[in-house]
C-alpha cells in the first residue's frame, strides 16, 4: 500500500485529505507543520506528501527545500495543497521541487487527477 503524509495545520483539512487519500488506496499519516513533517520523514520515506504552504513553525516551502536537500529527499512526490494561488508562487513551489500543485478549495476529483498524472494511482 502506498503511503502519504498530509502536512497541514488545519485539522479539518487533514481529515478531509485523509478521507480522499484513503479512498484512493493510500495509508495516511498526518503532521501539523514542517517541523513535524521533517521528523516523520527522517524515519519513513512516504510515497507522497500533500503539503500546505502557510503553517506555523516551519512553512511548506521551507520544509520542501530542506526535504529535497536530504539524502533520499528526492524520493517522495510532493503536491502542494494550499490557498496560495498566484502564478509566481506556484512557479516558486515547482522550482523548489514540488511535483504538482493543488489550490484550495479542492475535492477528490482534483486530487485523483493530480495523483493519476504523477503515476501514483492507476
Amino acid at each position: 500500500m502506498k503511503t502519504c503524509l498530509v502536512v497541514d495545520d488545519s485539522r479539518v483539512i487533514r481529515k478531509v485529505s485523509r478521507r480522499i487519500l484513503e479512498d484512493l488506496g493510500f495509508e495516511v499519516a498526518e503532521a501539523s507543520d514542517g517541523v513535524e513533517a521533517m521528523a516523520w520523514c527522517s524515519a519513513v520515506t512516504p510515497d507522497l506528501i500533500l503539503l500546505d504552504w502557510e503553517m506555523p513553525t516551519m512553512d511548506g516551502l521551507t520544509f520542501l527545500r530542506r526535504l529535497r536537500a536530504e539524502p533520499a529527499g528526492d524520493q517522495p512526490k510532493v503536491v502542494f495543497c494550499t490557498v496560495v494561488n498566484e502564478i509566481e508562487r506556484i512557479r516558486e513551489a515547482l522550482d523548489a521541487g514540488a511535483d504538482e500543485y493543488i489550490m484550495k478549495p479542492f475535492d477528490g476529483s482534483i486530487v485523483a487527477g493530480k495523483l493519476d498524472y504523477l503515476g501514483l494511482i492507476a
Partner: protein
Amino acid sequence: MIPPPDCAYLAALCKARAGLRLDTAKTYLIESRLGPVARREGYATPEIFIEALREGAGERAAWAAVEAMIVPEGEFFRDRAVFQRLVEEVIPELVRRRAGQPVRIWSAACGTGQEVYSLAMMLADRPDLARSCELYASDLSERSLEKAQSGLYSQFEVQRGLPARMLVRFFERRGEFFALAPRIRQMVRWRRVNLMDDLSRLGPFDLVLCRNMFPQFEPESLGRVRDHLRAVLAPGGQLLLGLGEERAGDLAPLVPDIGLYAA
C-alpha cells in the same frame, strides 16, 4: 419539478434542432441546467420558460434552451495518453503525408475549449509540427464558444487535467480567473457549427476530434452526424472518438486504443 410533458417537449426540441438525446427521467438535471437560462431570458422558472417556448418565444430562446442541455467537454488533457499519441505519432505522420501542405485539425464539439487548447499547448512545444498545423474548433453552443474564445478559466477548471507546470507556462492570473496566453488562443479559429447541418463547406480536414459526443445524440441522428463528419475528412483523414465509444458504426478502426478511426 418540471412536469413530464414539459420535459418531453424539451426533448423533442433538442432532437429536432440538434439531434440530441435528452434523458427525460433526469428532471433534476434538466431543471438545474435550464434554470439559469430561463432567468437570463427573463422567465422566473424553467416551467414558465418552456411555456413561452411552446408559444413561440423565438429562435434565440429556443436555441438557448437546446444549448443548455449539452454537456460540454470541460477537462484539459482528458485521457492524457491520447494527446501524447496524437502529438508523438498521429500528427507527425499526417504532417509527413501532407508534405508541406497544412494539416487541418478540427475539434468538432469543442465545448469550452479545453480539448483544442490542450492540443495547442502541446503543439507549442513542437514548433516543427505547429507550423504545419491549422487548428479549428466549433460547438453548437454560442455561450461555450464565447467562453472558449475568451481563454478564461476558473481555478477549479484549471485544476482539472492541467499539469501545474503547464499552468505556470501558459496562463496568467486575471482577477478571479486564469487567462490563457494569447499566443495559444491565437492558434485556434472558431465558429458555431451544428453537426446535424450540411458541413461540406467546412472541410476538408485531416483529423477531426469528436470525443464523447456520440452518446449525446439520438440513434437516428447519429448516423447523419457520422456521415457529415466522414464527408469533411480529406482523403486519408482520421476521426478521433472518445475512448470506449461503441457507436462508431461502420467507421474503420485505425488505432482502436486511442479511439482513432478512418473514414
